[in-house]
């Protein structure tokens, strides 16, 4: 089992083999997590710090549970409430924490590249839990695991990613991952929410949702953030739902066994119809959350193993 990376900063620099390694290991944790005794103490004695410079309930909880099930000592730092308010810079915060000898640092930050910057300054393994509009690698990995389990494979699928692509780190990481695994990717959304020159990333771009959803195997919806609404990217919530919201009628255009995904938290009635989101025959949204814990356990185990090797050779 080789995973030649010190940190997990993004999907961009992973190989297809790296991705398969993570997913295979994660499968074993899916089974473990369904038992009543959920402990595997591979991180025993290690310290995991979750630094979230941006609000998050779900991702932070997922990383916390993942760490605890692997036996790590987990600490959560709500960064908005602490030193950031006192004017400490990101690098100083990193150096301060580094002096406490953490082993795994899980970081979410509102600015693209901030996690890369931090990773340059610390001795431990850094996991990107989302940086600005850049990457959110564990989300793409948990999506991949969900797809692989539902579809039996992670290649040669037609995957539609719909909604606010421009501001979405989830979309970027998924575009990298699904592309590396040789799937056909379609992006669907209003042109105001498409990043510039996205057509150069090996994807097909659709402005019409009906056309884009035709015969896809996977429909991945993205969250439309409130601040985008105020920014004048779209005229109104109701028009957005009408044109780009996923409902049963639009989903009929996809393959009959197409699955529906959403990274959460959902805006019911904005990007996805509430009934559809709860339809257990189509929606794998709850399973995504479950896979999240398993994937994060796998990544942390791989990075911790590399860290141990690094420290032995040092």
């Amino acid at each position, binding site marked *: 089992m080789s995973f030649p990376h010190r940190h997990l900063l993004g999907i961009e620099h992973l190989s297809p083999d790296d991705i398969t390694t993570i997913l295979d290991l994660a499968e074993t944790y899916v089974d473990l997590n369904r038992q009543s005794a959920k402990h595997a103490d591979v991180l025993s004695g290690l310290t995991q710090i979750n630094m979230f410079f941006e609000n998050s309930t779900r991702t932070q909880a997922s990383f916390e549970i993942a760490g605890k099930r692997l036996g790590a000592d987990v600490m959560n730092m709500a960064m908005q409430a602490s030193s950031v308010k006192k004017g400490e810079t990101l690098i100083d915060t990193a150096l301060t924490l580094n002096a406490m000898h953490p082993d795994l640092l899980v970081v979410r930050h509102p*600015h*693209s*590249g901030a996690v*890369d*910057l931090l990773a340059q300054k610390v001795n431990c393994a850094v996991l990107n839990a989302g940086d*600005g*509009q*850049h990457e959110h690698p564990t989300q793409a990995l948990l999506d991949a695991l969900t797809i692989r389990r539902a579809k039996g494979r992670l290649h040669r699928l037609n995957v539609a990613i719909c909604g606010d692509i421009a501001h979405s780190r989830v979309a970027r990481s998924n575009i990298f991952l699904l592309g590396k695994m040789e799937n056909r990717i379609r992006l669907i959304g209003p042109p105001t929410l498409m990043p*510039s*020159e996205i057509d150069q990333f090996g994807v097909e771009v659709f402005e019409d949702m009906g056309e884009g959803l035709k015969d896809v195997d996977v429909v991945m919806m993205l969250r439309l953030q409130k601040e985008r609404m105020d920014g004048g990217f779209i005229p109104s919530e109701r028009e957005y739902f009408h044109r780009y919201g996923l409902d049963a009628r639009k989903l009929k255009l996809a393959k009959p066994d197409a699955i529906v995904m959403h990274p959460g938290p959902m805006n019911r009635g904005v990007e996805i119809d509430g009934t559809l989101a709860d339809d257990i025959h189509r929606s794998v949204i709850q399973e995504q959350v479950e896979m999240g814990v398993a994937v994060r356990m796998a990544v942390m185990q791989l990075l911790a193993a590399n860290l141990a090797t690094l420290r032995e050779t040092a």
Partner: protein
Amino acid sequence: MTDLLFTNARLIDPAAGTEHLGWLRVSNGRITATGTREDGPPSGPDEHPIDCHQKCLAPGIIDIGVKVCEPGERHKESYRSAGLAAAAGGVTTIVTRPDTTPAIDSPEALEFVRRRANQAAPVNVLPMAALTKGREGRVMTEIGFLMDAGAVAFTDCDHVVRDNKVFARALTYARSCGALVIAHPQDPGLSRGAAVTSGKFATLRGLPGVSPMAERMGLDRDIALIEMTGARYHADQITTRRALPALERAKNNGLDITAGISIHHLTLNELDVADYRTFFKVKPPLRSEQDRQAMIGAVRDGLIDIISSMHTPQDEESKRLPYEEAASGAVALETLLPAALRLVHSDQLDLAQLFRALSLNPARRLGLEAGRISAGAPADLVLFDPDMPFVLDRTTLKSKSLNTPFDGARMQGRVLATYVAGNQVYRREDATN
């Protein structure tokens, strides 16, 4: 003052568009004669002969748009440190920006700048003043008084005067005073919040981008207002190919317009930002390689008149931040010439064309006698070896701030000595003579 006789020099004459071996005589701070004989005439008794060993002797660089951080942030750059950096870079005149804290927007503030500059800097310092008070784009400054106090041009630097009426009035008033207005052509709405140029790289890095169209829109608006007011106008940086046709049309229509570009936009592109390297964050952001190539062509053709350093010192703290939060700007006084020589080594410009953009055109635009290598001009000169290779170590810079994108870069071409009005203000340690 000793008289000088430079012999055996490769004379770069941007006015004639030539370079040839010859000699140059300096007396009382001015060039008195030049000739083509390699060995030169016999030196007079009071004359100090300098054998140039066939290295290049060119008119000193006149750098429009240098930020010296006095008043306000002297820890980033003082007149002393900027002056020493300029001398080491072959820059004999720095034309300073008013975007200090507070802005240089009153005759009193300008007086302070002139006094400090004269005390501390070994090179010529010509100050610019703000076009509007506080660079806020609301009320024009005392353009007449500021000119009397020595302001050579008026600019709000990277602040765009948004209100067309305010800008039109300032341009009209400036025209009546014969003042040169320097503006930053950029549509402020379209470029709001941008950290890089939009496109594949911006999307890849998830950074907010600005379309190159914002520059063309800014320039289009400015051109309309120049046509309306007849003002003397210089665009500080034209960096995208989409803006070039409008610039060319405006020149052909006889408007009093010139344009500049920073050395970074001629020698670097957006991909140099790589993994969020903030020392490559400049304003406007670095452009695509196609744009960079087009800009080199525009400099060669003379459509873009002036190359400048856009020297912008920033301390480490303002740069050691996530890319979006990091400050813009790069120091460049000392790297301007070596970086520009890359364009000569790649056969895209010849030395005469380069010094037309570095020295002659800025002098012409500001009405200075310098920038030439002919009899009568001030003896502001740079002696340099265009081929000497080195690897830039930013800790060796004389600037107080070390935010150069060229740290660790291989460069070719070094300044051997710099003269201002016939006085040597810099000499490289290992240089002969």
